[in-house]
């Protein structure tokens, strides 16, 4: 029994290592353009892991993760924009009649500060919203709606405060990071490698977190929040923590997104992208860590693939795909794997019982 567990772990480890190496060596066999796309998908995958931690494990459905993704992305983009303008005012500020750099932009002159804020800022917002709502036991559909309203409000604010955020156009036209030209193939490859490494780190970190006792507590909260209270847990604290963590992860994903795509705008963080993010997780299979990664990469690859092949009607294909998966694979793609595993196990158990009976 013990040896099979070790084998299983080893098996997983080998599969993941192979995947990791495959991803890491992608620059060798993908064109720059495709590599860039893959890098973007992987950034989405990072976000999806965080979202699944929240939804799949803790049972809190957030339809507002676009905002955390966006905050991270904007933090990074603000620094990049300032560096591109070499200390001058970004162009949109001058149109909007600003004469000097607004206070809120000042910290973003320093890349390290920008990167740290890109994680802390979304985390802080999530912490505030989370503690205000979870402490009062606002949960389920109420929380989901609030999270979506948060998106609406912040996007409106981002669009409205054009002099600070660039409005609907968002922030784009970056040149350098730490003085290194961003658009060169070598820099982009580096960003890609960083994305893969961050993805791997977050993947392993989250796996570790959910595979232990802590993960069981999360599942307990998901399946019976009140029951957990009577076991002596404070689900609000756990939920707030996971919400904050997943917002921080989303922020990180946002930063990696901006580095590789070179633009962030409100369309990327609004209601529809936020719902799409949930779809990645649902499609990949929630309640696993690998599921959201698969979901995010596959959905986005399908989106790109369909829209390149059939620019006029690709949305129908994508919609059909979603419907098919929801109807036939309610547990997502990893659910398929689990059904298969369960069937195999039940067969094994069947044999086992037979043997036991024959001894009696």
């Amino acid at each position, binding site marked *: 029994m013990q040896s099979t567990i070790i084998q299983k772990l080893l098996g997983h480890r080998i599969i993941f290592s192979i995947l990791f190496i495959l991803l890491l060596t992608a620059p060798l066999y993908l064109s720059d353009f495709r590599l860039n796309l893959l890098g973007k998908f992987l950034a989405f995958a990072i976000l999806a892991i965080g979202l699944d931690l929240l939804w799949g494990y803790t049972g809190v459905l957030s339809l507002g993760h676009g905002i955390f993704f966006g905050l991270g992305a904007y933090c990074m983009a603000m620094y990049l924009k300032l560096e591109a303008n070499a200390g*001058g005012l970004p162009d949109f500020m001058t149109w909007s009649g600003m004469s000097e750099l607004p206070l809120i932009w000042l910290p973003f002159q320093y890349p390290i500060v920008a990167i740290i804020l890109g994680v802390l800022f979304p985390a802080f917002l999530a912490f505030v919203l989370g503690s205000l709502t979870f402490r009062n036991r606002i949960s389920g559909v109420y929380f989901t709606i609030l999270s979506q309203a948060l998106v609406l409000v912040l996007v409106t604010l981002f669009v409205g405060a054009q002099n600070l955020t660039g409005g609907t156009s*968002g922030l784009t036209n970056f040149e350098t990071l730490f003085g290194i030209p961003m658009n060169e193939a070598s820099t982009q490859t580096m960003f890609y490698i960083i994305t893969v490494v961050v993805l791997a780190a977050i993947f392993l970190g989250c796996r570790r977190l959910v595979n232990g006792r802590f993960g069981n507590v999360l599942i307990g909260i998901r399946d019976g929040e009140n029951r957990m209270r009577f076991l002596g847990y404070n689900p609000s604290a756990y939920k707030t923590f996971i919400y904050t963590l997943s917002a921080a992860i989303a922020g990180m994903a946002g930063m990696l997104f901006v580095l590789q795509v070179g633009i962030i705008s409100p*369309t990327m963080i609004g209601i529809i992208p936020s719902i799409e993010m949930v779809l990645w997780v649902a499609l990949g299979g929630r309640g696993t860590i690998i599921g959201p990664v698969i979901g995010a990469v596959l959905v986005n690859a399908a989106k790109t693939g369909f829209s390149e092949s059939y620019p006029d009607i690709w949305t129908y294909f994508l919609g059909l795909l979603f419907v098919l998966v929801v109807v036939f694979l309610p547990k997502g793609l990893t659910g398929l794997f689990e059904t298969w595993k369960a069937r195999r196990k039940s067969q094994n158990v069947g044999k086992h019982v037979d043997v036991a009976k024959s001894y009696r």
Partner: protein
Amino acid sequence: MRKPFIAFVLLGLFLCVLAACSASENAANANEPEETDNESTEDTSTDNGDTIKVGILHSLSGTMAISETSVQQAELLAIEEINENGGVLGKQLEPVVEDGASDWPTFAEKAGKLLEQDQVAAIFGGWTSASRKAMLPVVEENNGLLFYPVQYEGMESSPNIFYTGAAPNQQIVPAVNWLLENKGDSFFLLGSDYVFPRTANAAIKAQLEAKGGELVGEEYTPLGHTDYNTVIAKIRSEQPEVIFNTLNGDSNVAFFKQLSDAGITPEDTTVLSVSVAEEEIKGIGAEVIEGHLTSWNYYQTTDTSENEAFVENYKAAYGDDAVTADPIEAGYFGVHLWAKAVEKAGTTDVEAVKEAAKGISYDAPNGTVTIDGDNQHVYKTVRIGEVQSDGMIEQVWQSEEPIKPDPFLEGYDWANELSESLAE
């Protein structure tokens, strides 16, 4: 047993997608002569074979699809016309259509795909300023060409973009002057909350101040906003003579309906819109917007022989209900301008085409358009029009000659502050 089966079909589907992706990948790689590091090899591939690839990049899905699809149609029509007349440099044009999906990062991604993977000779596309700004770094970095067909706020001049829509001095500035002379001098500015209205209004305010107009109110509503009661209440209390409307898209429908419901007629307060053309009027309903004004370079009723042919061809291709409008026309003649420049240059090489395009003219449906070599905008005639009950717009005034484009408003004293702060 059924479910797993269907699941596997699904999986197969997914694998097909992946295969398709990698197949097109391989094909693209095969097209590339060598690694793309070598700049000089890059452009030659577009001249290879019997066709020249051009990219068409508009939103075919999402909120902008309604507007952008017709521009795409006009561009395809122009390509068809060129191909029927023997193509460019003896080669047929092959349009590569991509969907920007009303999402600006997608515009950047697809522009990259068109330039890097399909190696198109030029891209025709975009509608919103945001989409143009998203594509700008991509076309500059890949040294591509973008033809952008919509009127915009100015304050931009990329060496890799040709702007075939109106610059602010070819639409907004003359409209304000005309309104001051003919309709009154108290202005209410109403716009959607994004870059075009805000920038346009900044210029209008400077202009009003210089010309003795009076600003009685300024309101911005979020894109897609549909409840204008509070705004109309403000309008009612301020009693402006003119509302300068820079609302975009659906908001116009709500605004004009509610304005007419509130009993405010064009006689009381005239609304001049700069983002409402024939297509939008169809959606708003001519009865509620009848009598209000618009400012554009082109109307379907514009009286030129080129336009007669254009409207006829457009309707023949896309049905009798189809209407033409300014951005549609700008997209259409953009393709022709590019083709003319390529013929003149004798190659699709970007630098050569840009050089050849300087000062080039084309008899477009709105009259003769000429590319200004300095800023790659075009000389265009300005027209103020009044909406008729049949949804058409009848011209009430036009500039004597095509106006020189001035995206930074450098030729206007009152705009000095604006353009200077940008020059820094």
